[in-house]
């Protein structure tokens, strides 16, 4: 059963120098309870995909075609009012830089309250404190009371990202989009945050789209992988398939290019002048 299904999505940006096609008819599916990763370099269109799903890109300079079905509803055809009901409620997002994506003027408690009130007016206000504490404990925060009274700048990077995860969980969404959630973190913290995210998502039976450029992170986290390059999906398959038998030349090159901890020399790769588009999309 699919929770999200993107079909032939094409996005073009009109700007001063002409038209850029950011997404070239991509198709992507996420099943219920599945963790899917979208991997690509900068400028490949990964973040555009996430923003399209949330309806965050809607200006007159954008032309789009195709379909994004979320539980059978075509998000591209929905009105803004309906999108607002879905965004933050049924689909929520975790951004790359936790400290700058929180509001510096409000405490964590205030921001969590807002996230709750915007979507769920019926919630009993007396219980919120208990609920927030519970959410923060879920992401392994030891002293929720202190964190609730803190401002974003008073938290370390890892703490702030955990708070972001619990904020994304507030309305018990069915799908979470995480855009490079651990890029700004140290390796040890990254490991903790990844395992917390994995645990929280599977406990609550949520689906997740992880957007990342780090194949190591993706390997640890995802069930299935889509490899995107310059707006086109070049390969899709399960994590095992992608890492054990990468089919597309681009995926193979990417895997080879990553420095390995068991070799003392950088890989010798000639990546000049390879036209990765010449090879057709590889589906396992």
């Amino acid at each position, binding site marked *: 059963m699919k929770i999200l299904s993107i079909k032939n999505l094409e996005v073009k940006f009109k700007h001063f120098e002409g038209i850029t096609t950011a997404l070239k008819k991509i198709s992507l599916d996420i099943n219920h309870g599945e963790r899917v990763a979208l991997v690509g*370099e*900068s400028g490949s269109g990964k973040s555009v995909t996430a923003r399209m799903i949330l309806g965050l890109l809607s200006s007159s300079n954008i032309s789009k075609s195709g379909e994004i079905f979320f539980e059978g509803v075509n998000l591209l055809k929905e009105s803004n009012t309906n999108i607002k009901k879905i965004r933050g409620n049924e689909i929520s997002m975790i951004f790359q830089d936790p400290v700058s994506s929180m509001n510096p003027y409000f405490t964590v408690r205030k921001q969590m309250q807002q996230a709750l009130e915007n979507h769920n007016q019926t919630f009993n206000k007396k219980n919120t404190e208990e609920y927030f504490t519970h959410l923060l404990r879920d992401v392994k925060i030891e002293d929720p009371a202190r964190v609730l009274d803190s401002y974003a700048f008073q938290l370390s*990077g890892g703490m702030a990202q955990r708070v972001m995860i619990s904020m994304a969980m507030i309305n018990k969404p069915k799908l979470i989009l995480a855009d490079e959630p651990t890029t700004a973190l*140290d*390796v*040890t*913290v*990254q*490991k903790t945050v990844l395992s917390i995210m994995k645990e929280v998502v599977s406990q609550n039976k949520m689906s997740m789209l992880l957007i990342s*450029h*780090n*194949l*190591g*992170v993706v*390997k*640890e986290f995802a069930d299935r992988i889509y490899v995107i390059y310059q707006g086109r999906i070049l390969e899709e398959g399960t994590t095992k398939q992608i*890492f054990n038998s990468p089919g597309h030349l681009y995926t193979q*090159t*990417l*895997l080879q*290019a*990553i*420095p*390995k*901890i*068991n*070799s*003392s*020399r*950088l*890989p*010798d*790769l000639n*990546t000049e002048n390879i036209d990765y588009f010449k090879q057709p999309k590889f589906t396992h």
Partner: protein
Amino acid sequence: MSEPLLEIQNLKKNFKVGLSNVVAVDDISFNIAKYDSVSIVGESGSGKTTLANLILGVEKQTSGSIRYNGNEIDFSNKDLRKTIQFVQQNPLSSLNPKKTIYQTLELPLKIHNICQSKEIKNKIIQLLQYVDLDESYLERHPYSLSGGQRQRISVARALACEPEIIIFDEPTSALDVLIQLKILNLLSELKEKLQLTYIFITHDLAVVRNISNKTIVMNKGRIVEMNNTQKVFESPKEEYTKELIRSIPTITEEEEKIKP
């Protein structure tokens, strides 16, 4: 054992934050030999960037000494300053957005009187060739370059002073893997060609393994472990180092096996 190029002894740096005293670099000593490639690794807040700033003379140490070729470094000496250069993490914010590439590369040549004014243009073209770029970049601005090209310009700017030591602060963490590989390969070529000594400050341990012969692990301002890179990775002694290596996200089974 050859004479060390850079000798750091009991280096200490305190910062006053309000009423409390933060010790950013706490009693650190190590040597760097000529042609070494040393990596300083640690998490954010471990003091690695402060250490770089001290070596560069951007910050003044609270106590301890930094010796270069046997002599205490005097940062008021311009000739000495140019021998240690710096490449920052984010090239977009470390290059002046209003200046063309020509102007950016011209400045260090003029300040340090590297060459006569009529030779400046040739020198700049030579610098661009070092980093695999050509003359067509001279009149461009940083915003019109890709991340990899910008980082190449930063490297060219560091090379302008004909330094002996270059300190890189997370040189590739803002770049994609394919570009990262190109830049790292370029750096090792330049090291051979120009006989440079490198100090890398990074938290990416997989990169460290591939580019440096000596690794210094820092935590909370102190050196936790210091050894040649192969030994640090194959038989780490300290629990903190082991934890760091265990946390590296890896992609192959073989890598998984050698984790402690």
